[in-house]
């Protein structure tokens, strides 16, 4: 009755939504936003290096960053950060055993606030300038 092949796809199963309940989706989104934000953080630091190269390099970059594509990307970062932060609050509370029986409602709340926050930012960014 022994077998050794683990019946899972490992890494890919983190993001497999099959048969997942709300908490599973919270986890999937949390992990995706984590990977995205980590990538953004290091990219951001690299870009800010242009600050040290003097005003011209930086101002050129800012001008380029006014394109809608950059705005959408920036919005994505904001949405990811909002979700990761709000869900993080939920996870911290849960980790101290606060509100675990209501973890689903807390997830829905985090999601709702993320959507609202993203819409507000989107409105500001697209109407600005």
């Amino acid at each position: 009755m022994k077998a050794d092949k683990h019946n899972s796809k490992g890494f890919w199963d983190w993001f497999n939504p099959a048969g997942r309940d709300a908490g599973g989706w919270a986890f999937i989104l949390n992990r995706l936003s984590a990977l995205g934000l980590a990538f953004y953080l290091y990219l951001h630091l690299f870009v800010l290096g242009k600050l040290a190269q003097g005003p011209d390099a930086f101002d050129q970059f800012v001008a380029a960053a006014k394109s809608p594509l950059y705005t959408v990307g920036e919005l994505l970062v904001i949405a990811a950060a909002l979700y990761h932060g709000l869900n993080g609050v939920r996870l911290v509370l849960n980790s101290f055993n606060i509100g675990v029986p209501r973890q689903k409602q807390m997830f829905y709340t985090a999601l709702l606030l993320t959507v609202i926050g993203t819409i507000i930012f989107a409105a500001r960014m697209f109407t600005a300038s």
Partner: protein
Amino acid sequence: MWKITYRIRRQKGDEASHYDTFQVEVDPEEYVLDGIEKIWAFEDRSLTFRHACHHSTCGACGMRVNGVEKLTCITKIKDVTQDGGTLTVDPLRNFPVVSDLVVDLGPLYRKMEAVHAPPVHPLSMTPWEGEDIRPPKEVPTPPEGGEYIRLPDCLECGICISACPVAASDPDYLGPAPLAAIQIQGLEGHPELLALADSQQGVWRCHSAFECSAVCPSSVDPGWRIMDLRRQVTARRLKTIIG
């Protein structure tokens, strides 16, 4: 009687897995396991599946029904499909597949042993769950004295491990049922359990997907217990710096 289709994942030896379909006539009041047994009895004798008690006290018949982990012996057919519908049955995830729907639960049993999960315990130790059920206030005692002994709620069915995304990539993670067994015993006076809980394969590896609690057929609520264990470890560790 309903006519439904069972779509069952098959795998023998090292061959690649595939699905076989079987049309069966079932009573919708019957359970998913009854239909599988019927297929074995009348359609395909080579089908292998685990089962024993047929009423959710042994934990042998955990499978995935339409993608979700279920004890098939207590899952009514009418609750997961309709007349003319299809039922997809897969083996549990995150365990090695022996054959067809049979997985090797050995890794789980070894972990339960490593955390000394008690196979029977006094009634007063009956775990309270979430915020709903507290232990009975007055525990009736048999006339011989002592206390009633009962089997624990956890069936060691592996369903929580199958649903856990962390267990999907890390077979060494203790996982929901063993961590719940630590919580039920308590950390007081069990330094070895504290060490296991507060380790790389312990409570910190949980990423709070709460899938274990969503699928647990026996109200163990492992997700809640892991969070409670975190709170306990946190309190202990913070106390050490405060003095």
